[in-house]
C-alpha cells in the first residue's frame, strides 16, 4: 500500500520576459528560498531534490549541474527530468512516487526555465521530425495552428469565443502577483485585432515566453501533518502518451486521446463521477485559447463541441461553476520547464486556502494537468482530505 503524500509548501518567482538582474542559478534560488520559507524548513531538512527543465531552451545542456549550489543539491540525492512541456508534472509525480514508496520523508521539487537566454523556437524546431515536419511546420505556433484549424472545423468554435478565453486568462492574472502578463483592460476586440501569427491563432491567443522558477515541498503523511495545517493531498496521478507525429492521430486537439485517458484515470482513482460538479477548480496547461476550449471537452467538463459554449456561459470564470486557471494559466506565464509545476503549485494553493486574491472559495478538490510535445498528458487530483 502506498504512503499518502501531500504538497505542503510552494514558492515562485515573478515570471517575466527577461530576468536580467539574476542568472539561472540565482533565479532558481529565489523560488527554492520562498518554498522553504513557506514550510519553515531549512535546506538541511530536505531528503532529496527533483528538478525539471526543458533543455536546451537555455542554449546549454545540464543546466542543473551548473546551478547545483542554487537549488541545494550539494551532497544530496537528486534527479533532473526533461519530458518537454509536461516536465513540471513529471517531476512532481516522480517526487510523489518516491514518497509514496516510503523512500523519503521530504522532497523538494523544482521547475525552471530562463527562456530569454536561448532561442526557444530554434529549440522547438529540433523537436520536429527532420524529414516529415521540420521542412514545413516546425515551431510551436504553426503546429498549434494546424491542430486548431481542425478543432475549429470539428466544433465550430469562433474567434470571439477564443478571445474570451484570452480575456479571462489575462484578467485572472491580475490577481496573481507571479503572473507574467497582467492585462486588466484587455478586451475581446483587442484580442481579435491582435497580430495574426498563423491562421487562426493571433498573438493574444498564444502564451508568452517567460523566465521563471517554481519550487514545492512534498512530504510523507506524518511529516506533512507537522509541516502544514491544511496540506494538499495528492489523491491520484496519471500519465498517458500519444504518438508524436501529427499524421498518426487525426483531429488532434479536437480529440486528445492522451488527455481523455489520463483524466479518466485520475477521475476514477479519486472517485470523481462528474468532473464539472465534483472538481472545485482546475489549473490546466492550455498553451493557446483554442486549446483551452478543446481541453474542456477532452477533460470531460462538457460534451464534445461545447467548449465554446462553456466560455460563453462563464462556467469557467472566477465566479463560474468550475473556475479554470484562476492564476491566469499558461496564457499569462510560460517558463516552460516550470509551467506544468506551476499548475500543480497553483492547484495546491487553492486547496490549502493560500491563493490570496485569486482564491476560489471552499476548494476541496482540484485538477492540475501538464501537456508535452503535441500529445502527451499528465493529470493530478489534489484534495484537502
Amino acid at each position, binding site marked *: 500500500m502506498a504512503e499518502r503524500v501531500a504538497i505542503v509548501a510552494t514558492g515562485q518567482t515573478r515570471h517575466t520576459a527577461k530576468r*536580467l*538582474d*539574476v*542568472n539561472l542559478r540565482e533565479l532558481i534560488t529565489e523560488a527554492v528560498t520562498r518554498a522553504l520559507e513557506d514550510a519553515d524548513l531549512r535546506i538541511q531538512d530536505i531528503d532529496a531534490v527533483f528538478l525539471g527543465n526543458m533543455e536546451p531552451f537555455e*542554449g546549454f545542456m545540464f543546466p542543473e549541474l551548473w546551478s547545483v549550489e542554487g537549488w541545494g543539491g550539494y551532497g544530496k540525492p537528486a534527479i533532473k527530468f526533461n519530458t518537454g512541456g509536461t516536465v513540471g508534472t513529471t517531476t512532481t509525480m516522480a517526487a510523489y512516487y518516491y514518497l509514496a514508496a516510503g523512500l523519503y520523508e521530504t522532497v523538494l521539487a523544482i521547475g525552471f526555465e530562463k527562456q530569454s537566454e536561448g532561442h526557444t523556437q530554434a529549440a522547438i524546431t529540433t523537436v520536429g521530425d*527532420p*524529414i*516529415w*515536419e521540420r*521542412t*514545413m*511546420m516546425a515551431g510551436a*505556433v*504553426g503546429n498549434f*495552428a*494546424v*491542430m*486548431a*484549424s*481542425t478543432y475549429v*472545423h470539428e466544433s465550430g468554435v469562433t474567434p470571439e469565443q477564443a478571445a474570451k478565453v484570452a480575456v479571462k486568462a489575462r484578467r485572472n492574472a491580475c490577481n496573481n502577483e507571479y503572473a507574467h502578463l497582467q492585462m486588466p483592460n484587455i478586451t475581446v476586440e483587442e484580442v481579435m485585432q491582435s497580430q*495574426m*501569427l*498563423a*491562421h*487562426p*491563432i493571433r498573438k493574444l491567443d498564444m502564451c508568452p515566453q517567460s523566465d521563471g522558477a517554481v519550487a514545492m515541498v512534498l512530504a510523507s503523511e506524518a511529516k506533512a501533518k507537522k509541516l502544514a495545517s491544511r496540506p494538499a493531498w495528492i489523491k491520484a496521478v496519471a500519465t498517458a502518451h500519444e*504518438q508524436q*507525429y*501529427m*499524421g*498518426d492521430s*487525426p*483531429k488532434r486537439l479536437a480529440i486528445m486521446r492522451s488527455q481523455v485517458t489520463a483524466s479518466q484515470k485520475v477521475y476514477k482513482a479519486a472517485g470523481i463521477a462528474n468532473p464539472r460538479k465534483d472538481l472545485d477548480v482546475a489549473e490546466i496547461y492550455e498553451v493557446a485559447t483554442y486549446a483551452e476550449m478543446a481541453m474542456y471537452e477532452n477533460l470531460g467538463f462538457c460534451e464534445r463541441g461545447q467548449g465554446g459554449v462553456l466560455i460563453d456561459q462563464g462556467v469557467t470564470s472566477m465566479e463560474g461553476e468550475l473556475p479554470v486557471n484562476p492564476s491566469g494559466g499558461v496564457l499569462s506565464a510560460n517558463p516552460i520547464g516550470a509551467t506544468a509545476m506551476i499548475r500543480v503549485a497553483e492547484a495546491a494553493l487553492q486547496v490549502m486556502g493560500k491563493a490570496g486574491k485569486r482564491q476560489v472559495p471552499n476548494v476541496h478538490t482540484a485538477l492540475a494537468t501538464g501537456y508535452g510535445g503535441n500529445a502527451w498528458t499528465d493529470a493530478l487530483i489534489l484534495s484537502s482530505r
Partner: protein
Amino acid sequence: MAAESWAVHQKIEIPFQYTAGPAVTRFLEGLKDKLIVASVCSKCGRRSVPPLSFCGRCWRPIAEFISVSGEGTLLSFTRRAGGDVLYGMIQLEGTDSSLAHYVTGEVGRLRIGCKVAAVWRAGRTGSILDIEGFREVGN
C-alpha cells in the same frame, strides 16, 4: 537590484545529419519516380505514409510496401506567420495516416475536407520537397 548584471552573447551552430532508415529510404527513392510509398502492416492492415518498418501497435516488423495515389483530403491547414505559405495535413487516398506538406490556396477560400493532389517538381532528388506541395482539385 543591488548591482548591474551583464549578459554575454554567443551564437552556436550545430552540424547535424539524420538517418532515414530502410522504410523511409524506400519512400525517398520513390519520390524520384513520382511514387509515394506506403507501408502495410500484415496484422492490422494499417497503411502508413510516412512508411514504417515496424508496427508499434501490433509490435511486429513490416515487410510490405505499396505505392499510393498522390491525391488525398486536406485535414487541417494554417498560413505561416508573415507570409503567403500555407501548410497542413493531407490524408492520401487509401492510407490511415497523414502527411505534413505545403498547400496552395487562400485562407478563407480553402476548406478542410477538400480534395488535393500532389504537385511534382522537375529535377527530383529524393527529398520530401520533390513534392512542391498539394493543390486543391475539388470539393
